[in-house]
């Protein structure tokens, strides 16, 4: 990676890639049903023309440019073109409602915006009075925008064409562009990533160019990624994960990035592309497993038996084989047969056949879910990190996987556990500061320059790997003194395909309670098979048989909690099924689908009071926000159910 080390900005890396891998594919995009390909040479030409066009529209060094939309090559090139000119891209979540969008755009002082389509243009226009600095908007998809006022609005294609013609006519412009690229330094602001705001208003994390490149170089070396690898770009552009794994790693290692046709087709496109590097949050793996299990329920008896028989084989031997441990010959033979009959076809259906390295992070992944994918031969690993670190702090090395840890500390990362149990770090990709927020920056740092993560964890003495327990502020105790780690219990609940989301309460209470969201796919399928008629999510969620089914899941969870001494005290005594799905538009979960616990507790106060008050049902009415920003009120009567808990065995009962 010496070449990468020499190039200290992304545009310089792009030029290097265009020189070394001119004819290798760099970007793919499925358009009108056909995969279009651009080589590194072509991407450089496009980005240069785009940069020239943007500079003719007035984009200058130091300006910020918002990038809003799904994963499309032209939006990725918007990053490159902006960075060539020394402008700073600010990606924003495409599904952000107008108000959130306005906050980020206003806070980051954007002068330009590169957006996907009419929907995003409309959103920006609707809040334009809050964005006095915004001068120009460029868009990728012209549909529906023909009759708009085009004085400050341009199609990206037109900007690129304009830039290309200007470059062809005027060689001085090309030289000026080269000088701009040359003038870029490693210490420049490379990007501002707004955090999803698990803990309140989002903050703009400023990252330096050299920091980004150094961090990405470390992991590219760690996982031996090169120009022959391929990844599918389907994660939100504004998320550090996408910017790191896809944008930064692709430029550092020159691997090819494939953009799906649309968000809905991502999983089908993945099957066609066959990526070698794959990242997905646990939720996606959960959905994959749920889908497989549901389809197996509908399969014929022979297939079902074959499937379950070989899954048992995989459970016994799969992970050991993947880790390169000793496995009896019979085990290996059975596993090979399973690969032929079950695991191989299964991975193919899921688009995982070619995957060499898969990562998951963002939430703790259920150990059973994790080992399911590993046992069928997917090299799935966990990593731990955050936006402020430019993602990676720890990652599991190939072959040394302990599912309850998040892996070993990365090279060049200095990680320590504070007195309070909080994880703190210094890392190559470490952020420069929060944009326009000195106070928050200072708050996030220790006096000696370490960054606080806010997570409680410890280094496992046996393996030397990091273990994360929970957000430091979330871990609590019941009034009886028993340890209460909500996320730990929620993860156990969420492993049931029928449960999509769970929020567990119990800190400073007498016992633990849970609010559940059903998974509409799984429960809907069950309803279909059992002739349960329902008209809406709300109706299905309140169905007595659904309650019965989920009560069994909660009881099983209690039984499993009872097995673990530390957690046995925090079994769930009462639960309810919420009448609506927790939704980012209502602020109940973040855009990255993490539950905002305190907000949910506040919003559903009457339900929590009822959970602890002993009532058998409670009324709730909440404000909901529709996708277009309008608001409505949703009222419901929610039933509450008691469940059996397992008596905690007296400690040491079975010893000796």
């Amino acid at each position, binding site marked *: 990676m010496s070449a990468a080390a020499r190039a200290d900005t992304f545009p310089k890396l792009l030029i290097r890639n265009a020189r070394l891998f001119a004819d290798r594919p760099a970007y793919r995009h499925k*358009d*009108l*049903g*056909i995969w279009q390909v651009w080589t590194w040479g072509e991407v450089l030409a496009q980005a240069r023309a785009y940069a020239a066009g943007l500079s003719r529209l007035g984009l200058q060094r130091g300006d910020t440019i918002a990038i809003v939309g799904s994963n499309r090559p032209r939006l990725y090139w918007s990053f490159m073109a902006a960075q060539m000119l020394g402008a700073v891209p600010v990606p924003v979540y495409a599904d952000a409602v107008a108000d959130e969008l306005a906050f980020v755009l206003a806070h980051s002082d954007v002068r330009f915006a590169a957006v996907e389509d009419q929907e995003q243009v409309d959103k920006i226009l609707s809040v334009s009075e809050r964005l006095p600095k915004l001068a120009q908007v460029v868009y990728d998809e012209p*549909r*529906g925008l*023909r*009759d708009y006022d085009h004085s400050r609005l341009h199609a990206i294609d037109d900007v690129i064409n304009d830039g290309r013609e200007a470059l062809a006519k005027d060689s001085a412009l090309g030289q000026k562009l080269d000088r701009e690229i040359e003038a870029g330094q490693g210490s420049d602001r490379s990007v501002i990533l707004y955090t999803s705001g698990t803990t309140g208003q989002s903050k703009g994390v400023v990252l330096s160019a050299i920091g980004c490149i150094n961090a990405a170089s470390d992991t590219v070396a760690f996982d031996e990624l090169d120009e022959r690898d391929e990844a599918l770009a389907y994660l939100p552009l504004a998320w550090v994960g996408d910017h790191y794994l896809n944008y930064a790693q692709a430029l550092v290692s020159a691997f090819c990035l494939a953009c799906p*046709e*649309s968000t*809905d*087709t991502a999983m*089908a496109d993945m099957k066609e592309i066959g990526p070698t590097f794959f990242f997905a949050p646990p939720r996606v793996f959960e959905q994959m497993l749920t889908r497989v299990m549901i389809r197996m329920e509908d399969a014929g008896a022979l297939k079902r038996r074959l499937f379950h028989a070989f899954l048992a084989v995989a459970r016994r031997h799969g992970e050991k084989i993947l880790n390169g441990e000793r496995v009896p010959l019979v085990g290996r033979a059975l596993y090979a047969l399973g690969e032929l009959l079950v695991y191989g076809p299964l991975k193919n259906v899921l688009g995982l056949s070619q995957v060499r390295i898969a990562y998951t992070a963002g939430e703790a992944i259920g150990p059973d879910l994790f080992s399911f994918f590993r046992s069928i031969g997917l090299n799935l690993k966990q990593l731990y990190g955050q936006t402020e670190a430019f993602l990676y702090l720890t990652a599991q090395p190939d072959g040394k996987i302990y599912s309850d840890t998040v892996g070993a500390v990365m090279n060049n990362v200095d990680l320590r556990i504070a007195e309070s149990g909080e994880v703190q770090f210094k890392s190559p990709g470490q952020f420069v500061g929060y944009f326009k927020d000195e106070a928050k920056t200072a708050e996030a740092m220790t006096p000696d320059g370490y960054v606080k993560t806010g997570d409680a964890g410890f280094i496992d003495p046996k393996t030397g790997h990091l273990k994360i327990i929970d957000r430091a502020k979330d871990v609590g105790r019941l009034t009886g003194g028993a340890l209460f780690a909500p996320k730990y219990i929620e993860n156990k609940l969420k492993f049931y395909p029928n449960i999509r989301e769970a929020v567990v309460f119990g800190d400073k209470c007498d016992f633990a309670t849970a609010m559940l969201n059903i998974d509409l796919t799984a429960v809907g399928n069950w309803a279909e098979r059992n002739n349960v008629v329902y008209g809406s999510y709300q109706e299905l969620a309140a169905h007595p048989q659904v309650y019965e089914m989920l009560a069994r899941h909660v009881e099983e969870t209690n039984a499993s909690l009872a097995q673990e001494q530390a957690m046995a005290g925090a079994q769930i005594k009462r639960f309810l099924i919420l009448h609506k799905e927790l939704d980012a538009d209502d602020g109940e979960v973040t855009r990255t689908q993490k539950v905002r616990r305190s907000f949910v507790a506040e919003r559903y106060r009457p339900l929590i009071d009822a959970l602890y008050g002993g009532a058998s049902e409670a009324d709730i009415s909440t404000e909901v926000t*529709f*996708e*277009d920003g309008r608001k409505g009120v949703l009222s419901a009567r929610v039933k509450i159910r008691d469940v059996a808990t397992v008596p905690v065995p007296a400690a040491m009962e079975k010893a000796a």
Partner: protein
Amino acid sequence: MRAPHGAEIAAGDVLLAVEDVSLAFGGVKAVTGVSFDIRKGEIRAIIGPNGAGKTSMLNVINGFYQPQRGRITFKGKARAQMRPYEAALGGIARTFQNVALFKGMTALDNIMAGRTLKMRRGFFWQLIRVGPALTEEREHRHRVEQIIDFLKIQHIRKIPVGKLPYGLQKRVELGRALAMEPDLLLLDEPMAGMNLEEKEDMSRFILDVNDHYGTTIALIEHDMGVVMDLSDRVLVLDHGVKIADGTPAEVQADQAVIDAYLGVSH
């Protein structure tokens, strides 16, 4: 988008004129002496209470029913007896009140079926699928893919339509009608049975079709909000008789309409 025959019609000119049309089934008078026109490039709504003769009117326009009296002029040509496929060849496409797709075929194949009339090569050529037939199929597929992209149904391209939810089936049906590249698109209750979100999507698509392809649209719809938002002009029928015709605002203020329809049902 060129008219295959007849003079070129500019936007705003009359595309289709219905003069004094009457249709009866035995003793039941479905439509009585109705006259109106549809101008090129507009979205024209036909509303009215149940049994007002709206669908009969559409069926008359696309040649499914033959009126006993009256005259229909399409693209400047008064037309005599005409069968639906002739109307289709002439540039009139439609969707149906009850989705009428080929349930066992994929969304892609259903929309492809909309191009049948545009195919120049015969059955035999298409069967062996070489040379000109293959080139032609590629061309048609390209057009169909543009429509799929337009309607944002890439994710259901290869799924049999019978398995799709109702809202998506309606969208596929619209796609099939669009595949004919019609001059006049007839939509029979495009939003019936949809939820709010699906209605909003469909409204957006109808406006986009009108804007992007410049297609003239005549639609029957019961949702008044949708009708008032979408259409340029509204024709109101009651018991087969025209009782009002004008802009949404005019129609809304019309006392006869309020009595016959809006006042009662809302």
